[in-house]
């Protein structure tokens, strides 16, 4: 039983590369199935493996082979425990990668193998994105600024929320040299992504867009329709106007267009940044922005 589990994993992987291991994979699968049905494994798979492994080792090191042969059951248990612990770590790493973007946890920038493995496809997809312009979307700063940053984000996306701090840091550091535009791309798999976008446009009607924008991120984890109305009241907006705007679905079509525009441009994750047309996908370190903005400013000086 123990070796069947180990064999299933090991030969399953090896079988992807070489047909000779597929027979062993099938045998371990067969044994596993029988064991799960509380029947004895009728192929003597573990016996075969024990003998083959011991004989192979015995050709080079008889002493080690004797040890393996006599303590095979114990060794397979140890191997199984190591495998299970490794599997738990891999699962945790994958979970962290999906949720936090890094397999080492929320506050780590250490090396992550998934990043390395997925880099190639992300690079390809990034290269395929067509840059989006300001196009009349809410902007801080002058449109004549030498560096124009356009962020495409979703109010319910946790990565967009995390990236919010960069906006303030960039504006503080580069002042009039940069403009910052936020384009909405409501991700359909997040609840309230469209509703928050519609509410933000209703706030724009009252010139309260950025205040409302900030509040949406502040209340991201506890978002509800009622919360959208409450935020308007909290910010001292004309709630009657807001309610009329929101409840009559004024911006449903615009928000849908925002999403379609993002998809057509090839955007596959939020936040996505365009710095003078150069594309950056995902949550970045502030230093990455500093370098890009600095180089763009330098480029604008030399023109």
């Amino acid at each position, binding site marked *: 039983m123990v070796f069947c589990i180990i064999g299933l994993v090991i030969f399953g992987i090896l079988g992807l590369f070489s047909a000779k291991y597929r027979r062993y994979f099938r045998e371990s699968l067969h044994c596993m199935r029988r064991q799960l049905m509380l029947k004895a494994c009728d192929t003597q798979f573990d016996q075969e493996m024990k*003998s*083959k492994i011991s004989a*192979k080792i015995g050709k080079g090191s*008889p002493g080690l082979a004797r040890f393996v042969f006599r303590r095979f059951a114990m060794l397979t248990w140890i191997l199984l425990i190591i495998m299970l612990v490794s599997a738990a770590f891999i699962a945790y790493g994958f979970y962290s990668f999906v949720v936090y973007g890094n397999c080492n946890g929320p506050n780590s920038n250490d090396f992550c193998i998934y990043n390395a493995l997925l880099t190639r496809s992300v690079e390809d997809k990034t290269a395929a994105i067509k840059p989006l312009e300001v196009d009349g979307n809410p902007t801080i700063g002058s449109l004549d600024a030498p560096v124009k940053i356009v962020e495409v984000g979703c109010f319910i996306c946790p990565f967009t929320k995390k990236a919010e701090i960069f906006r303030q840091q960039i504006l503080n550091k580069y002042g009039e040299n940069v403009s910052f535009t936020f384009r909405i791309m409501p991700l359909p798999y997040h609840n309230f992504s469209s509703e928050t976008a519609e509410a933000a446009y209703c706030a724009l009607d009252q010139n309260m867009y950025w205040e409302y924008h900030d509040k949406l991120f502040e209340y991201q984890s506890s978002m509800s329709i009622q919360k959208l109305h409450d935020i308007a009241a909290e910010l001292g907006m004309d709630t009657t106007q807001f309610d009329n705007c929101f409840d009559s679905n004024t911006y449903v079509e615009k928000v849908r267009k925002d999403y379609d525009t993002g998809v057509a441009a090839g955007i596959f994750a939020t936040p996505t940044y365009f710095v003078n047309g150069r594309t950056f996908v995902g949550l970045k370190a502030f230093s990455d922005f500093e370098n890009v903005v600095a180089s763009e400013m330098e480029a604008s000086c030399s023109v």
Partner: protein
Amino acid sequence: MNTDKIRKDFPLLEKNIVYLDSACMSLKPRPVVEAMNDYYYNYPSCGERSAHRLGKKVTEEYETARKKVARFVGAKQEEIIFTRNTTESINLVANSLKLKPTDTIITSDKEHNSNFLPWLKYHHVIVPTCNGRFDMAAFRNTVNKNVKVVSVVHTSNIDGETFSVKEIGETAHDQGAVFMIDGAQSVPHKETDVKKIGCDVMAFSGHKMLGPSIGCLYIKKEIAEDMEPFMVGGGTVQDVVNGKPIFLKPPEVFEAGLQNYAGAIGLGAAIGYLESIGMKNVEKHETSINKIITEGLSSIKNVTIIAGSPEERGCIVSFNVSGIDSKELAIMLDSYNIMVRGGFHCCHNWFNTHGISGSVRASLYLYNNEVDAEKFVAAVKKVATLGK
């Protein structure tokens, strides 16, 4: 006997393989494969039915093969029946002799399951073996007029011991019993003459004697004529009138349906091959290789060989290494390119009765040589260090 020349007829041996599992299935020399290919390429037709020239050619070759088999075991052509294997041959006899469930059948405790299980539906009496040998005294005390069949193995597939079948047969005949022998391990390895042995029935297989998968059954004419066919159908009747069949005579009456013509023709070629070498030479050669193996294994401290001397065991060396299961040992030897069998060799009753949990069996044939024996001993020496 020129083993180097013989080995060239077996392409597998060029692949650095030491094949020591011939008691289960022998290798096939080129002439056997060529004879079968000739059938499949040039006259793959029905025998004993079709009147066209291909059909006639099949019938001719099939009957020639029967004639060769008959000559090889000292029988008449019409006394040889082709079957699938030894197992089917014995089942045919067990189900075609006019026996009642209360009739007594005697076998030894050392029988292959194929000569043990078919008799369980009758009053089955088991004669023990002592140090691997058939207990004649116990047999004489057991056999009486109620015994209808005495069926014993000629040469054991466990350890290669050969029973004194002539003596057993005489005792059986004294009591009026039919005497049958399982010749699966004797016919391929030593001169066998059913008349000299005095047996009434003998079953054996082609695939253990350089031939393809096919079984043979010798039944003495008078006994065969008194048997009722176990399986009937096409090829077993002369005519069917008003729903009543007029059966053919043996051997055709026992060969229902289309036969394994290629198998029979291949077996004919295998017999020709063995006859060209001479069965005495085959036996002598196997014993000499067995001596080398026995001597080598005896020098390994945790190895136990089952039963007697190399002369008694002929083509088989059965042994155990303490601390290593026989199947595990066989798998380990596979890693050294050595093919042997481990386990109970289909003789569960004997192993269980004697409290032995299987054995490793190295079985020899004419294509094995001294180098095979030395490689085998060296490999066993190496893996035996893993045991106790």
